[in-house]
């Protein structure tokens, strides 16, 4: 089972079953208040369920942080079309590996979340879109789903409630862009992962042209807790405008990397020092990415006093994102980091729109040349200029995701770019040496 040593500083609402024997089985689930929330929700009116989710201040955990209760309320419940629940388990944002842990250790929690969402919007079928690399998780989920069918937690007339619900897993095949909700729906329909023109939003026209609730794995996983213990209790765990906990992936240069469940508003400093065990080899923090490589990079100075929540990060002109915290110590070459990030976006751009398709590739080429010592001073401005001119102009947010970290790196670490000029070798490069070991 994939999960790290827990930290005493965690608030384990979604992850409290992690580490229990056979935590992924229905028996363990049922023995630990599993499906209690579903029973409760089955006795409630759809509006009441949505109300509880609204009260919980749950915001989407996929990266954009959209209020979940509000999203559910956009579904035209009286539409004659079937409605669908879609789970975004594409988890591809660099630095993010939390959905994996949630599905591996507690698949029934996700199933229960889907059932409750189904009750809330009158949907009777759901699809879990799992990235192709997570093949073993498809098997984990399929097994849990099969168990749920067998014991009457999925299928027709679930536990005598009269509610029918079918749930399927669906494999992706390697494409970051398919994490973007509308591209995901295209992919689910057997097409290229090209985003759709919006509006209409998935809540109105989603999977198979029908109203659809589309949320991240973690978002659905929070729902059973909300219904079980009440939205207010969940809200109380977080900060005023965002309730609950956040599965946080500590990655990069920390001593104790891992996925930790921390309440929203958890201080960054404490997170790095105490949860993460401090920066490796006693080094100092240079740069901090709060939630996956799409977020603007913050300097050590900027994160002083910051907390892990939407507002604190927004004040610092970054984003809470997906929970993929990337910690970079003073020995990190920021040019190389910028290059690697841009290489990723250039590789993952779907190719639909010009600024993203051509911009990411151009930037990748400049940064490659630059890191290899072939840069000129005007390139530094060009990198910033091109990024700035991609921002807000692309068809989907991938273009922004590529531009934001790059722009923040050239702006905040310009000196490091200058250090690479005139054919100088990268000042941080120590060929062949591994620090990991």
């Amino acid at each position, binding site marked *: 089972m994939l999960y790290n040593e827990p930290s005493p500083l965690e608030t384990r609402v979604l992850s409290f079953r992690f580490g229990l024997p056979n935590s992924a089985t229905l028996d363990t689930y049922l023995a630990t208040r599993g499906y209690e929330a579903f029973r409760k929700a089955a006795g409630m009116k759809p509006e009441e369920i949505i109300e509880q989710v609204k009260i919980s201040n749950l915001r989407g955990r996929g990266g954009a942080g959209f209020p979940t209760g509000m999203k559910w309320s956009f579904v035209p419940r009286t539409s004659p079309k079937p409605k669908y629940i879609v789970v975004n388990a594409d988890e591809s944002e660099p630095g993010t590996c939390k959905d994996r842990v949630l599905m591996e250790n507690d698949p029934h929690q996700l199933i229960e979340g889907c059932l409750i969402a189904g009750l809330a919007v009158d949907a009777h079928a759901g699809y879990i879109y799992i990235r192709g690399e997570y093949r073993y998780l498809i098997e984990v989920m399929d097994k849990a789903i099969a168990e749920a069918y067998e014991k009457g937690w999925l299928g027709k007339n679930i536990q005598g409630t009269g509610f029918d619900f079918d749930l399927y897993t669906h494999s992706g095949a390697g*494409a970051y*862009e398919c994490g973007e909700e509308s591209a995901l729906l295209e992919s689910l329909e057997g097409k*290229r*992962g090209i985003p759709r*023109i919006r509006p209409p939003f998935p809540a109105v026209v989603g999977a198979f042209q029908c109203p659809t609730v589309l949320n991240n794995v973690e978002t659905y996983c929070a729902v059973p807790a909300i219904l079980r213990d009440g939205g207010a209790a969940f809200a109380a765990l977080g900060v005023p405008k965002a309730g609950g906990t956040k599965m946080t992936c500590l990655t990069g240069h920390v001593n104790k990397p891992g996925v930790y469940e921390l309440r929203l508003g958890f201080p960054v400093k404490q997170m790095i020092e105490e949860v993460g065990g401090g920066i490796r080899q006693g080094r100092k923090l240079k740069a901090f990415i709060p939630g996956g490589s799409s977020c603007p990079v913050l300097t050590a100075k900027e994160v002083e006093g910051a907390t892990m929540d939407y507002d604190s990060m927004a004040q610092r002109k970054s984003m809470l994102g997906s929970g993929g915290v990337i910690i970079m110590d003073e020995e990190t070459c920021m040019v190389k980091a910028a290059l690697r990030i841009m290489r990723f976006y*250039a*590789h*993952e*751009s*779907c*190719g*639909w*729109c*010009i*600024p993203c*398709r*051509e*911009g*990411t*590739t*151009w930037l990748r*080429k*400049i940064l490659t*040349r630059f890191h290899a010592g072939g840069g000129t001073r005007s390139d530094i401005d*060009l990198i910033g200029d*091109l990024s700035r*001119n991609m921002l*807000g*102009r*692309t*068809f989907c947010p991938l273009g922004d995701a590529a531009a934001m970290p790059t722009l923040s790196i050239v702006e905040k670490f310009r000196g490091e770019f200058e250090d690479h000029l005139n054919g100088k070798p990268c000042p941080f490069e120590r060929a062949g040496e591994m620090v990991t070991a």
Partner: protein
Amino acid sequence: MPDLVKLTIDGKAVQAAPGTLVIDAAKMAGIEIPAFCYYEGLTLQAACRMCLVEVEKMPKMMTACTLPVAEGMVVRTETPQVAQARKYTLEFLLTNHPLDCPVCDKGGECELQDMVFRYGAGESRYTEEKVHTPEKQFSPVVFFDAPRCILCFRCVRICNEGMGVGALGVIYRGVLSEIAPNHGDHLECDECGACIDICPVGALTSGIYRYQTRPWEMQHVGAICTHCGDGCKTTLGVRNNRIIRGNNRDHSGINGEFLCIKGRYAFDFYDHPERLQAPLVRKNGKLEEVSWSEALDTVANRFNQIRADGGTFGVIGSNHTTNEENFYLRKFAREVLATPHIDHHRTGDVTALVDALSGKTGRMATVADLYNRKAVLVLGADLAREHPLLSFQIRANYRHHQAHVYAVTPGPVREDKYAVASVRVASGGYFAALEDLRARLKAEPELVIVFDDSFKGPDVHRLVEFGESLGIPVRYICLVDYSNSRGALDMGLVPGEGGMRLDEMLAADLSALWVVGANPFKGTPGVPGSVARKARFLVVQDLFLTETAEQADVVLPAASAYEKSGTVTNTTGEVQRLKRAINTMGAKPDLEIMGFIARQMGAAGALGPWVPETVFAEIRRTVHGYDIPLPEIDTGGAAPTTPVNGRVTEAGGPRPDLIRSDHNGLFASGTLGRYSKVLNSVLEGRLDR
């Protein structure tokens, strides 16, 4: 009419119907918002980002191509931010675009070139290496140069949506994304070339046109395609008396931008090496080249002699020649040769339809009706193969207006993909199938019924009865094969009182048979297989030494549709003008040939001047339904005729068994098709046969 939405664009007050896109609303107000991927009538993409505009109260710039107008909306299209976005988009586009405008076919009519000129990014800061990939040949007519492609996906959409073929797709992703053909390295499709026309840059180029000339070095002449009966307008690019390309990029005419392979490329028969350049006269059993005057004298003298001897003349007219020529030929036959023996190859029973509708008006559907009417019933024909424009119109109607399409055909047809009902019938099963559909058809607000030669004579009357019994407005189209099949009938190339029909003429012992632009000896309805000539004197006017011409005593080389002026009437009875695009050495327009024969015979006075405009004036005066407004056709449009209640009467009426469509597919066109290099070069032509 719903209330108009009021908005402001660049300070101008603009009104537009609800649902109008800002890009179109701006255009109506004379404000051009640049775009590559937006293309009227095709699905929206918002991919190129050229059309970004500022909209008050919106945090980000919006794509004008996807934004519907809203009351009180304030749009700005020329702010510094917008200008900058355009400039950057162009700079991004040019990073991998080869700057080979001087050798690119599109140079001079390239949308990218124009935009860079207008919106900047003259000088690029891109110093990285460009990706080179070799040019690919997708088919004899379609070449693809990937680096020039800007991925606007217009070609993919026109092929998928417009043509219903889906032969082009996009493979790979990101900067590697590339347009790809449906069969590995090559296309198997309609070869219509719409993808080439719609390409804003020089990525898709025409195998026929490439490297021939520059757009500004051509004259552009509006002509009418001389192949099937749909009558598409095609604009011919002409240089040095040669036709270099055909397209309809100005979207004029009944077909808008549509053309099939025949309209776009199959003009090429005109300079086929076997094209007749000089008249031939049979001497000692062999056809020998002679001067025009000798050939005309031979014909005129013989005709006069037969007249003097009281011999019988037979006259067979053409489905390709102009109305003026057909009219003149009929007059010649009836008044000068005094013969009732005149006919042409009928490919559909228009006569029966006209008769069945007598007493009613406004029942003949036009090409436009197929796009505008709420429901269409197709009977028999595989329209996508035989009447590509009509098929295109119906598809567009379905895409844009969700028209209900019913296809009742012997085999699968392209219409099946979106038809509300597709019924397969064996011959003879049509009326049963129609009865099954009756309730559904009755429920339609209106209907266009399109039928081919599966319905003839009494069946046409029965079909009209069926249509009339539905109690909804119904219009009809009787399909005919060739560019002027309809005109041949309307101009009266039909037997007079006691006259022989085509098959009878072939079998009869005539003193002279005069065949103008037809190849009846190749096989004719009622006379299968090749025919040996019976007539004692045979005169043939044609472009090529056809099976019929080979047996002639005199062969007179005729001009093609692109080498003469006049009018033609398409299968829906719409009249359009042909403008002479080129002159040909040796050959003469049929009208001129006939005029000269008349003059040599001393009979010209009776027939009047052989000037197309003069003859047409007479047609307008005397042929029922042809008193059409001139401005309409003189400006390149089409004017529908109203032939009901007064067609040229035909003794005994047509014989249904002699009506037969050739059912030419996309890659065939009767005898003419054999002389088109393009039609013979494409793989599909071979597969289709």
